């Protein structure tokens, strides 16, 4: 757990992202926090929604892009994914994949 937090803080420092005592307040964090309403805090779903925690960044990016293009069937994620640019999809995926 410690290790990934350290890595993410290093990345944050390198990228000049504000770090305070706690979690980062980056654009990735802001975007990803909107996922938590349906998928649970940190992407850990307590019920029937799929968890999105612990998924590698590449597969999150691919899934979101496939939702966006309509390649992957969805109930509502197709309508959500269209709301994000490719850069934003990467930011979401990077942030989510680093949560431990």
């Amino acid at each position, binding site marked *: 757990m*410690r290790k990934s937090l*350290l890595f993410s*803080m*290093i990345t944050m*420092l*390198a990228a000049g992202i*504000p*770090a*305070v*005592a*706690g*979690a980062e*307040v*980056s*654009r990735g*964090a*802001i*975007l990803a*926090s*909107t*996922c*938590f*309403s*349906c*998928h*649970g*805090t940190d992407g850990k*779903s*307590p*019920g*029937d*929604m799929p968890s999105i925690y612990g998924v590698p960044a590449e597969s999150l990016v691919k899934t979101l892009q496939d939702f966006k293009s309509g390649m992957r069937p969805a*109930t*509502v994620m197709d*309508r*959500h*994914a*269209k*709301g*994000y640019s490719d850069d*934003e999809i990467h930011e979401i995926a990077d942030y989510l994949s680093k949560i431990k």
Partner: protein
Amino acid sequence: MNTLTRRRFMQWMGSGALTAISTRAALAQTGSGGKSGKHIVVVGGGFGGATCAKYLRRYDSTLEVTLIEKKPEFITCPASNWVLGGLRGMDKITHSYDKLQSRYGIKVVHDKVTAVDPAARKITLKDGAPIEYDRLVMSPGIDFQWNAIEGYDKAVSETIPHAYKAGPQTVLLRKQLEAMKDGGTVIISAPGNPFRCPPGPYERASMIAYYLKQHKPKSKVIILDTKDKFSKQGLFMEGWEKLYPGMIEWVAGSEGGKVEGVDVKGMTLVTQSGLVKHKGDVINIIPPQKAGWIAQESGLTNDQGWCPVNQKTFESTLHKDVYVIGDSSIAGAMPKSGHSANNQGKMCAAAIVTSLYDLPLPEPSHVNTCYSLLSDDYGITVAAVYHLKDDTIAGVEGAGGVSPSDAPAMTRKREAVYAGGWYDSITADSFG
């Protein structure tokens, strides 16, 4: 970053030094002279307030966060229509504040806020001593415009429920439905925009029909509406036709739907300047609304009764260092929903934390998804992604929208399952 530097960084951080340094540096910048934590007071432990308190502590664990909520437990409006339909019990929609205290170190005070003094940065409580704050977040939800429908006030709501704040009102309406004879008429009066949960009255009509179809199939539901159109209208009507043919009647505002008064003894609603009277066996009046009482009291509202806020930070445009989120706030295109309030709570937490440390606030982003159940296995949604456009919160073009019409039963069933999943996730994200 090369390996050597990285290793040194890791050694540093292993000792907790880096966290301390960045915080100290930031604190020095704000001139707070090394004081370890600021005090943020959050008023209202609903979807907005609870989420904001939790994310404030997640973003900055040195903050002291006090959440003030007048009720001992939170009973959610989301899923309260499912209680009316008989799909859930009240216990399944009741949530405790324990986890916010034990997991996130939030001080939860059960008391009623009676006044806010923005100049002195102080709030007054009904029972406890006044509390000072560095920043104040208000998420007091809605209150009703009593007597906007003539004769409908708080006292009358004890016999003709609104059931638009979940709790005893939900139980009362459910009991009235249970006591109604087969062949009875249920009338729902729906308000004009803006109001809490735009699909709420129509999900309610569906859930009532779901119950009636099983137990009192000769009964009817009439919706008398102030509006001429409503959220997910096409999908609701398609579903009603399929599931409850002939059972639900909707009367548009321009066709005489706007309720003007109530005759309590006669169990009658009056429309069209008294020309038409509708008699119901069970009546549910959802009155027009305004920001929560304490927001009005504190001078945070405009002349329409809602709170104007900075669309990026949710800071009130009327009082400095006071933030308003959730149903009380005017949040651009976002509907007044628990989902919106939850998102706004996070954004507001980020805005407060970054402002305390004089750090830049990332571009805002929000999502809303409103699930509605038409039966136990028939769900529909409306969704949107929001960003800041021309200084207001606007939907991202090309994204969002409603579930497809004429979709196969399987799709409706999936959305019904996900409605339950949504509920479990959002309540966990807000309260646990």
